[in-house]
Structures are given as structure tokens and as C-alpha cells.
């Protein structure tokens, strides 16, 4: 019984790695959250262990918060642009996910 359980645990750690599941998203649209309050949605063409990525047909959303000097009101702005082909350097990546349908 103990041997079977240990065998199962070994199988679990060997088979499923986080990057293996990004591999399943190749050629699919994904959502990437980056440093500097940026988000990308595009088609994943390639990636590597650093999470450098090649994305196609990608929309970038940059979020900024302005504070009014007088009213101290927070103004949230988003800036969008579309880029047909993009190389993303991995060190800026926070998280990767299949795209959200809500926004």
C-alpha cells in the first residue's frame, strides 16, 4: 500500500510541470500579465524556459493611475495598442493564463 502511494507521488512530480502546461497553449490565445502594469492578449507562437515569448496579433493594455493635485482623485486610464508580431522578454512576465472572457 505504501509502495503504491509512493509510486503515484513520483509519477505526479515527474509528469506535470508548470511549463509543460504552457506548451499545451501553443498556437492558442493567451493572457500575459507583465510588470509595469501591462497586459497582453495574443496568440502564443513560441516560448522558452525564461518565459521569453513570441506572440502574434497581440493587444497590449497599459494601465496608469493619475492623482489629481487638488481633488486627490484617482483617475485610472488604460492605453491600448495592437501589434502584429511581438517578442516578449521573460524577465518582465508575472503570469500567463488562457484569456479571460470577462473583459
Amino acid at each position, binding site marked *: 500500500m505504501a509502495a503504491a502511494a509512493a509510486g503515484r507521488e513520483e509519477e505526479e512530480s515527474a509528469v506535470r*510541470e*508548470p511549463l509543460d502546461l504552457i506548451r499545451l497553449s501553443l498556437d492558442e490565445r493567451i493572457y500575459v500579465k507583465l*510588470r509595469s502594469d501591462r497586459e497582453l492578449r495574443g496568440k502564443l507562437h513560441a516560448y522558452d524556459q525564461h518565459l521569453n515569448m513570441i506572440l502574434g496579433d497581440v493587444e497590449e493594455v497599459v494601465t496608469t493611475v493619475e492623482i489629481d493635485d487638488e481633488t486627490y482623485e484617482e483617475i485610472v486610464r488604460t492605453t491600448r495598442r495592437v501589434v502584429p508580431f511581438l517578442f516578449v522578454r*521573460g524577465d518582465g512576465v*508575472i*503570469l*500567463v*493564463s488562457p484569456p479571460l472572457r470577462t473583459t
Partner: protein
Amino acid sequence: MAVPVNPKPFLNNLTGKPVIVKLKWGMEYQGYLASVDSYMNLQLANAEEIIDGQNAGQLGEILIRCNNVLYIRGVPEDEEMENAGGGPGG
């Protein structure tokens, strides 16, 4: 006196369980820890983003790049369900 638990066994034992991952940048992600690799990149399932202690969105399946992680903590199973349901009480 507890037997010493090292980081890798701790993480391996945490897979499949609800966890909260806090990032260095302040946000947190709650979900089931699906897998970990040797760099401690994390894969979460049914993940939700928590900013300033408030739910900021359901993300589903996510990969968190290892360098962003401040810490990971296990969350008791019933608490995770309560948070997900957003029900009263507790």
C-alpha cells in the same frame, strides 16, 4: 518538536491543495496548486486574484513565474470554499 520540513517536500505535499501565493508586488493569487518545478514556477488552477484583500477577478488556470513569488501558504480547505462562494458567516 516538529520533524524538520524542507522547502521542496513542503511544496510537493502542497500540490493539489488550496494555496494563496503572495507576490513581491503586493497582489495575491488563491487557487489549487497544480504543479511546481525545480525553479519553483507555480501552476494554479481555479485561481482568483486578490488585490488589497479584495477579490479582483477569476483567472482560472495560471502559471506564475518563479521570480515574482514572495511566499506560498496553504489555506484550509473549508476556508477556500467560503472565499470562493463569498457567503456570509465565518
